[in-house]
């Protein structure tokens, strides 16, 4: 099989994971104008929870659901309990706060489960498939990854576009004061938004772990990729997050495949700087930001 095609297909599957994390960052940014640097660490923590539940019950899907549920709780608690208090302060303080959460999570998780590298189960085989004797460089797990992230994307689209709850959430994020005057429970919706975002992040954590293994800072690089994907998409657009994630997946797959896997993160950095220099508002946002 053609090496280029192999890299393309694996890149697309990885890109869906980056898209899920980018989506989490975008949802948080839309809701509260904060970039949650703890998003990767939160996903790491929920994946450890999934592993614990899996080991207890022996059923992958119990762990899967537990991780998503834990993600919702962690996200909601972080917003209501901590981030709420700095939302109106200088943006720097909110960023430092999420970094504090990152440090705490990356320290507390190894306290509970140890710092050693662990393998993580996949619900489907992560080995490449053979169809009618022909080798295809896509695993059933890759297909599951693509399917489940697309499903989440569509579900969110439906939520935001076609439900009253989604309309209130958009209103709360877009014009909190006016929304509040019109009777929208803005605070509650922001908490809900963070919870939802962290569910998407938890999904990314679950999808990364089978191939990348699980350890306390296994999501650091994924956070950089997800952030770059989100910026590529404009930081404000879920569709942008999907396209940005796929673009990152492809780009990093080619960088890793042709230049060496150690350069993937540096490559992501180069892409990020290039985007920000050329089109700082991202590829999918048309509203002009404040320029000085």
């Amino acid at each position, binding site marked *: 099989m053609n090496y280029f095609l192999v890299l393309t297909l694996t890149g697309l599957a990885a890109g869906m994971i980056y898209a899920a994390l980018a989506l989490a960052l975008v949802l948080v940014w839309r809701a509260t104008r904060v970039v949650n640097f703890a998003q990767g660490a939160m996903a790491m923590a929920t994946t450890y929870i999934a592993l614990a539940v899996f080991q207890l019950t022996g059923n992958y899907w119990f762990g899967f659901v537990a991780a998503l549920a834990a993600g919702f709780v962690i996200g909601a608690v972080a917003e209501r309990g901590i981030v709420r208090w700095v939302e109106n302060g200088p943006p720097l303080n909110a960023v430092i706060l999420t970094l504090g959460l990152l440090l705490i999570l990356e320290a507390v998780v190894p306290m509970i489960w140890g710092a050693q590298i662990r393998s993580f189960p996949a619900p489907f085989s992560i080995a490449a498939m053979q169809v009618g004797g022909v080798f295809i460089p896509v695993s059933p797990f890759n297909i599951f990854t693509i399917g489940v992230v697309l499903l989440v994307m569509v579900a969110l689209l439906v939520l935001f576009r076609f439900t009253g709850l989604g309309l209130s959430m958009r209103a709360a994020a877009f014009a909190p004061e006016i929304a509040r005057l019109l009777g929208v429970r803005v605070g509650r919706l922001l908490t809900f938004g963070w919870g939802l975002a962290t569910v998407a992040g938890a999904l990314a954590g679950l999808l990364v772990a089978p191939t990348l293994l699980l350890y306390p800072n296994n999501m650091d*690089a994924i956070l950089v990729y997800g952030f770059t994907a989100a910026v590529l998409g404009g930081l404000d657009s879920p569709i942008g997050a999907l396209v940005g994630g796929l673009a990152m997946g492809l780009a990093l797959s080619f960088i890793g495949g042709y230049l060496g896997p150690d350069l993937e993160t540096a490559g992501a950095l180069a892409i990020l700087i290039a985007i920000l220099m050329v089109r700082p508002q991202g590829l999918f946002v048309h509203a002009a930001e404040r320029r000085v």
Partner: protein
Amino acid sequence: MKGLGSVRPALLRHSMVGLGFGLGAALAVWAIDPYNPFLVYQLSSVCYFAIAAAGLTVLTGLNGQLSLGHGALMGIGAYTTAVVLKGHTDLNPALVMSAATVVTSVASIIVGAAAARLRGPYLAGATLGLAVGLPGVAVRFSNIFGGDAGTSVPALTPPDALSSVAPEVWLAWIGLVPTVVTFVVLANLVRTRYGRDFRAIREDEVAAALYGIRVARTQVVAFVLSGACAGLAGSLLAYTSNLAAPGSFPLTLSLLLLAAIVIGGLGTLPGAVWGALVVVFVPDWIGSVNDAVHLPSAVRDQLPLALFGGVFVVAMLAFPHGIQGGLVRLWRLRASRRKAGTSEPAIGTT
């Protein structure tokens, strides 16, 4: 702002304070050595943490740019030191440190030029990429940088005339020189036009631009200045640990630097020293407390980081001015009590 007339005395005063502090610290190092070489070694660590934190506090506290990549910039300084010393092991440390500073400054120009177009979270994200990605570069080009194992750096040895001085003490003495120089330079610089421009931009970029300050250029200057400090600190780190390795510059190092300036008080140079002391000594102190309490090793190893993370959260919620802010408040409180009646605001809020 005070008039021009106060600049000269400030320069003199800063130099005197720096010199006095340096001599005092050098004496202290010499006095504690026979009893505790490890403590002396830790003081060298305080030196490089303080230098890097001082640079970061000017960037983050005064200019309002958040960098998560200063650990990686320290890595550039350390690797420069290792590579320069590879061929010439007995090169003068002053020369080597200058080279590390210059190389890191050049790297900072590239990052800073991108940074000047980035606002808040974008800059933090880009520098996060730097912190996570740079160790990989060192691994990839292992023929130059030594891969995962890193490149060793020859230990500093005192000259023959001072052969009675222990190597740890000599290292600490050498470390104090760039520390004092950095602090004196920065203390003076933040009082010049550039320092005021930094602060003006932090407060309001639009207003600063209207006032004729070239925002982008000034931000690059701030980033390069602070990157140069990180490079110098990295060089000292390489001398202290005798090694430049990718594992020495994880994201956690950048976060520790941030912890140092948050704990000490954002934007204050003395705060950088307090923060460096806390970041170096608290993990050790937790270790010694643990000898009595016997926590599991997994908990003990991670406790300092959890603690610093908690400090980020608590500091941002309750004490945004850190240790130095608290000290200043105490000092003013005392001064205003003494004057009795002349009320003075406790501390300027930003």
